[in-house]
């Protein structure tokens, strides 16, 4: 429960953070809210030699109306996402999902950018932003680039970010009145989902993503494809796990996970269709 030794440096700006991470090489990690990284370090599952603390870069904490999308600074805390009036109006699914992250202490410290960059398939916000068709903005030594959420998640805790790139903004398309639902199935309120579903629906369009149904957050494209072709909610939900690679753990067998995904996707679509 005690971390391996590490050095600590604090960045005052994104540019300085990227410069510092470049100086310290592959063994350096960004520290934002610390609610994913520090537990891993305490369990010695991660042992970076240097932490570059970006938690005080205030100008990366914002939620702005950007026309067709809402722009969220990477260092915006879950509690600010949860309680944002702008998100309540234009991306209520994301605001609601943020209210399910961990517990209040975690939500006051943890950040949306940290959660997404950590790329944990069991976390709520990677899958939710994936369902919403979000775009992530990364800043590196040579400038910024946009990465579609669909291209971002590459493996268990692996993202498309280069080691010297920092996630700076999350762009969430406005939901434009779409129905939505967030289903989180777990045993205790504070736990990660055993299976979770983030879904929205507007006419023939939909987005459905699964939490903890594989090594990455999973976009259930078969479900959306079936709905686009006029399938019933019940029939479409039967395709919930087509893209998934459900794992076995103490809470669920793969078979049970597939069953849960079908039930929860059906419920999510029913709620989204109301």
């Amino acid at each position, binding site marked *: 429960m005690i971390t391996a030794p590490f050095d600590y440096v604090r960045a005052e700006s994104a540019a300085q953070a990227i410069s510092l991470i470049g100086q310290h090489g592959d063994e350096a990690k960004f520290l934002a809210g610390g609610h994913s990284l520090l*537990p891993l370090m305490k*369990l010695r599952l991660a042992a970076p030699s240097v932490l570059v603390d970006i938690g005080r870069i205030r100008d990366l904490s914002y939620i702005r109306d950007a026309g067709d999308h809402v722009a969220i600074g990477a260092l915006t805390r879950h509690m600010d996402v949860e309680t944002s009036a702008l998100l309540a109006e234009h991306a209520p699914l994301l605001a609601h999902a943020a209210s399910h992250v961990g*517990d209040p202490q975690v939500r006051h410290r943890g950040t949306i950018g940290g959660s997404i960059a950590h790329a944990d398939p069991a976390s709520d916000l990677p899958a939710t932003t994936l369902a919403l068709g979000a775009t992530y903005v990364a800043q590196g030594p040579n400038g910024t680039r946009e990465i579609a959420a669909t291209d971002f998640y590459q493996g268990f805790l692996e993202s498309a970010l280069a080691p010297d790139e920092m996630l700076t903004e999350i762009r969430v398309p406005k939901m434009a009145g779409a129905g939505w639902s967030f289903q989180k*199935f777990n*045993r*205790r*309120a*504070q*736990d990660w989902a*055993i299976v979770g579903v983030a879904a929205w629906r507007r006419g023939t369009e939909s987005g459905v993503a699964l939490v903890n149904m594989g090594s990455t957050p999973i976009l259930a494209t078969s479900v959306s494809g079936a709905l686009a072709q006029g399938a019933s909610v019940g029939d479409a939900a039967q395709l919930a796990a087509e893209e998934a690679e459900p794992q076995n753990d*103490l*809470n*669920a*067998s793969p078979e*049970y996970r597939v*069953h*849960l995904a079908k*039930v*929860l996707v059906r419920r999510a679509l029913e709620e989204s269709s109301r």
Partner: protein
Amino acid sequence: EATYAIERAMDALADVMGIDPMELRRRNFIRKEQFPYTAFTGLVYDSGDHELAMDKAAAMADYAGVRARQATQNVPGATKVIGIGQASYFEMCGLAPSRVLASLNYSAGGWEAATIRVLPTNKVQVVTGTAPHGQGHETAWSMIVADKLGVSPDDVDVLHSDTAIAPLGLDTYGSRSLPVGGVAIALACDKVIDKARKIAAHQLEASEDDLDFAGGTFSVKGSPDRALPLAAIAFEAFTAHNLPDGLEPNLEAQVTYDPPNFSWPFGTHICTVEIDTETGQVDVLQYVAVDDCGNQVNPMIVEGQVHGGVIQGLAQALFEEAVYDTDGNLKNASLAEYLVPAACDVPPITLGHTVTPSPTNPLGVKGIGEAGTIGAAPAVINAIVDALSHLGVREMPMPASPHTVWNAIRNAQGASK
């Protein structure tokens, strides 16, 4: 606890007999007029009114109302079904006497020791062999002493848990601290009062039989002006200037109490659950506990003990489990994986009580530490099996995780097809 097996068996038997589980228990309770009751094991149950506690719990849980709702809700194809389950426990507590513990192969005895010391400063020191770690002994022991000696609880210091101070004592377990250690304190107070009475009689020039002791003061019957407060007697005992012949100085007494019998708390817990048959998720809608621990010294501590115990029992029924792989490695060694319920995972708990004093000890107390854990696990599992009985489910392993419940439903459905 054996109660888990007994209470699960009662429900299984009621199911086979086709009668209500509550009715089966009612027919088999030892009636209150049969106490003290010698069981076939030779143990003597001290006192009880099991039916009263069960009826009170049934009323608080609206047992009949839930049964009626269940009849309309648990229909074929329903995805939300309800169940109600009970546990009517009868518990061997206050572990003692020493000779009986020897026959049960306990290595220690069953007594507890107490010293009461009335200091010349008018403070009372209590040395107890019980070792509290959250059970509120300082508070409860102060209340017993305050009641006995007529002093303020604020003037009582309870010393414990350090062998340099309290070398004589056994253990805090088996709901025994009050019915053994607490009673030792009451008896030591009686010895202090007896000694103080001798000093008071001597100084007031009255016979001991002519003295009343009330509100911390001895007075001569019929002459309330001729009086000595305990504080003054303690000071006289300390200076020893004017004590009766042969009486040792200082106002102090020690008692080691080895009770003649166990104490036997009892009660009925009733749990109501709703189960999502598609996912196996169990939602505890209501938990009612009616416990009878005899006379209560501090009702707030009693409630706290029951709350904590019920949550521990709920956790055993629904959450906690040590999982090992085939090589013997513990697979859930952190508190992220070993599930202890947090406050938001605990259902509303409604408490009631009945009071049937124990005839075994002068305080009439029985102990409350284990009631919650003993009642909760079988009540919860009985409720879950009850909710799923129309689907053919007859057994439910603990913890009843969603996966386990889902498997049980599926297996029962497979078996019935």
